[in-house]
C-alpha cells in the first residue's frame, strides 16, 4: 500500500504536467491576447506590456519560466518584497535564507492583484462552500439510501426515492433562483445574496465568523449545491445495498446466527459502499465546478467568477492557476478514493 501511494504521488506530478501543457497550449492557441481590446491599443503600448510580462519570449520559454516559478522552491537571501511579480504563496525563513515557493504570477486583468491574492482571498470562500455542500450531500444522501434499502418497498422507500429523484432533477441553476426568490425575496427569511466570512481566515480557509452570521448566508447555497449530489448518493447507496444483502455471504452471516444489526452494519454496509465511493470522485469534481454557478446566483465572492472571466480576458496566469489548482484537488480526491477502495474491498490489490 505504501508503495502504491508513493507511485501515485509520482504519477500525480505527471498528471499535473500534462494538464499544464494542454492548458498552456490551448490558451495560447485562442486568438487574441490579454491586451486585445475592442478599441485596439497602440502597438507600442502592447509591445511594452508584452515585454513587461515576458509575452514576447518564445512559448516554450514562457512555459518553462512559469513552471519554474510555480513548482520549484527558490532559495534566496533577499526577503520577499511587495512587487507583484514577487508574490509567493509559501515563504519560509530559515536563518538568513528564504525558501520561496509557488509564485503563480500577476493577474493581467486586475492589475493590482496576483493570482496568489485570488487564492488567498477568494479560494477559501469557494472551499467553505464546497465543503459544506459535500457535508450536506453525504449527511442527507447516505442515511436516506440506507433507510430506503432496508425498508424496501415500504412507504419509507418510496418517500426516500421520491425525494431523491426530485433532488437529482433540480440542479443549482434551478434550485438557486427558486431559493433566492422564495426565502430571500418573498419570505425574507435569509439574505438572498452575499457571504458571511471575510479574510483573514483561520488556518487559511476556515471562517472566523461563526454561528448565525456565517450560516444565514451559507445555508441556501450549500443546500442548493449539495442536494443534487445527495440524491445521487442516496440512489447509489440504496441500489448497492439492495444488491449486497442478496449476496451469499450475507446469507451465511445470517445463518450463523448473527444479529441482524451486525449483519447489516459489519457485512452489508461496508461492502455496499464500494460503488458509492467510486462516485465520490466525480461527485467531488461536480461540486467543485458547481460552486462556480452557485457563486454567480448567490452573489458569493469566491473563485467562480475568475473561471470564465479569465478565459474570456485571456488572463493567462489566472487561467493556469485556477486549472492547476483544481487539477491538484481532483487528483488528490481520486487518490483518496482509490485508497478507500482498497480498504473497503480487500480483494482489490494495488501491488
Amino acid at each position, binding site marked *: 500500500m505504501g508503495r502504491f501511494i508513493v507511485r501515485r504521488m509520482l504519477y500525480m506530478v505527471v498528471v499535473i504536467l500534462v494538464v499544464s501543457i494542454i492548458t498552456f497550449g*490551448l490558451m495560447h492557441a*485562442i486568438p487574441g491576447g490579454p491586451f486585445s481590446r475592442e478599441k485596439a491599443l497602440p502597438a507600442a503600448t502592447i509591445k511594452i506590456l508584452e515585454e513587461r510580462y515576458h509575452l514576447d519570449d518564445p512559448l516554450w520559454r514562457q512555459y518553462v519560466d512559469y513552471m519554474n516559478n510555480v513548482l520549484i522552491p527558490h532559495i534566496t537571501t533577499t526577503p520577499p518584497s511587495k512587487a507583484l511579480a514577487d508574490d509567493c504563496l509559501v515563504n519560509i525563513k530559515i536563518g538568513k535564507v528564504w525558501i520561496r515557493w509557488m509564485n503563480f504570477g500577476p493577474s493581467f486583468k486586475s492589475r493590482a492583484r496576483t493570482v496568489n491574492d485570488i487564492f488567498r482571498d477568494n479560494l477559501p470562500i469557494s472551499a467553505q462552500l464546497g465543503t459544506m455542500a459535500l457535508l450536506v450531500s453525504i449527511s442527507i444522501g447516505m442515511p436516506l439510501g440506507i433507510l430506503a434499502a432496508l425498508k424496501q418497498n415500504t412507504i419509507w422507500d418510496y418517500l426516500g*426515492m421520491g425525494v431523491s429523484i426530485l433532488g437529482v*432533477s433540480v440542479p443549482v*441553476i*434551478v434550485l438557486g433562483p*427558486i431559493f433566492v*426568490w422564495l426565502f430571500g425575496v418573498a419570505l425574507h427569511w435569509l439574505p438572498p445574496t452575499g457571504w458571511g466570512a471575510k479574510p483573514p481566515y483561520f488556518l487559511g480557509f476556515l471562517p472566523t465568523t461563526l454561528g448565525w452570521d456565517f450560516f444565514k448566508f451559507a445555508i441556501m447555497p450549500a443546500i442548493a449545491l449539495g442536494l443534487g449530489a445527495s440524491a445521487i448518493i442516496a440512489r447509489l447507496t440504496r441500489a448497492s445495498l439492495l444488491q449486497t444483502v442478496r449476496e451469499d455471504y450475507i446469507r451465511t452471516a445470517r445463518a450463523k446466527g448473527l444479529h441482524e444489526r451486525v449483519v447489516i452494519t459489519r457485512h452489508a454496509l461496508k461492502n455496499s459502499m464500494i460503488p458509492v465511493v467510486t462516485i465520490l470522485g466525480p461527485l467531488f469534481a461536480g461540486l467543485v465546478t458547481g460552486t462556480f454557478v452557485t457563486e454567480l446566483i448567490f452573489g458569493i465572492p469566491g473563485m467562480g467568477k475568475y473561471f470564465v472571466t479569465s478565459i474570456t480576458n485571456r488572463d493567462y496566469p489566472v487561467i493556469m492557476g485556477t486549472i492547476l489548482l483544481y487539477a491538484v484537488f481532483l487528483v488528490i480526491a481520486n487518490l483518496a478514493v482509490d485508497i478507500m477502495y482498497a480498504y473497503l474491498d480487500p480483494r482489490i490489490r494495488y501491488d
Partner: protein
Amino acid sequence: MSQEKPISKIHGSSGIPILKKRESLFKDGIRRLAKNRASVVGASLILIIILIAIFAPLIAIKPFASQVLVDQNKVSEWLVSVFPTMKPYAQISNDYPLGADYVGRDLFSRIVYGARISLTVAFIGPFISLLIGVIYGSISGYFGGRVDNFMMRIVDILYAFPSLLFIILLLAFFRSSAAHFQPGTIGYIFVKFDEALGGMFFIFVGIGLTAWETMARLTRGQVLSIREKEFVEAAHTIGASNLRIMFRHILPNILGPLVVAETLAIPGYISTEAFLSFIGLGVNPPTPSWGAMISDGAISLRSYPNQAIFPALALAITMFAFNFLGDGLRDALDPRLRGTQ
C-alpha cells in the same frame, strides 16, 4: 417495483429464478418496464416533451426571436397573483401567458422552443458516452494487468482535468477562433457545422470528450468484479472466446448498473448544456436555451422572478421525467433485483 409473480418458483443456486420460457433480455425488460408506474409516467412525460419540441412552431404563440421592446418585462395578470412582490410596479399585458423577457420576447414561446435543445442533448449525450466508454472500459477491465493499467492511467489523466473547465476552454477556443479559420480547413468546417446547429455541435464535442470517462471507469470496475465470478470461469473452461464471454456473459450482467448510471447521467448532460448556456458559452443567441433564459432571468430575479423560475421549472420537469424513466429502467433491467418483490 415489479408486481408480477416470477414465472417459475424454481431458484438457481444464486437465488436468481430460472425462467422456464426463454425470453430475450430486451423483451423481458420492456415487459417489466411497462408494469412500472413510475417509468410509464416518466416515459409519457418525455413523449409529451418530444411532441412539444417537434410541434414547437404550432404551439408557440410567437416567434422565439421577435422582440417587442415596448413590451419588455410585461407580465400577465395571473402571474401577479402568484408572485405578489411584483404588484407595485408590474405592467400588465395578457398577450404573454408567462410574461415577456427583458427585450420583450414571449417567455412561453421561448420555453417551448427550448425543449428542442435540451432533448437533443439528452439523446446524443448518452449515445456518445456509452459508445466510447463501454468499449474502452470493457477492454481495460477484461484484459486487466498491463493493458488495464495503461488504459486507466489515460483515463486518470483526463479525469484529473476538470472537465467543465476543459469544455469551457475548448468552447472559448472554438468560439473565438471561428472568424480566423480559413475556408477549407477542418476548423472552418466545424465552425460552419456548429453555426448550422445553432451552436450545439461544440457542446456535443465537449460532452463527448468528457462524459465517456465516467462510463469507462464504471464499466471497468463492473467487469473487474464480474470476470472473477464462477460463471465466467465456467465459460472459459468450455472454451468460449473472449468476445463471446464479453458480450454473452459479462455485458448482460453489468447492463443494469450501466443503464442506471447512464440515466443518472442524462439529466447531467441536460444540465451541462444549461450550465454552459448559463455562463454564455452554450448555444448562440437568440436560440432559446433554458439555461440561457435562467441566466437572463437571474439578473432581474428580485423584480421579475417569473423570467427565471419558469425556464427553471421546464428544466426541472424534463430532468425529472428522465430520472423517473431511469428509475423504472433500473428495476426492469437489473437482473440482480429480478423476482424480488
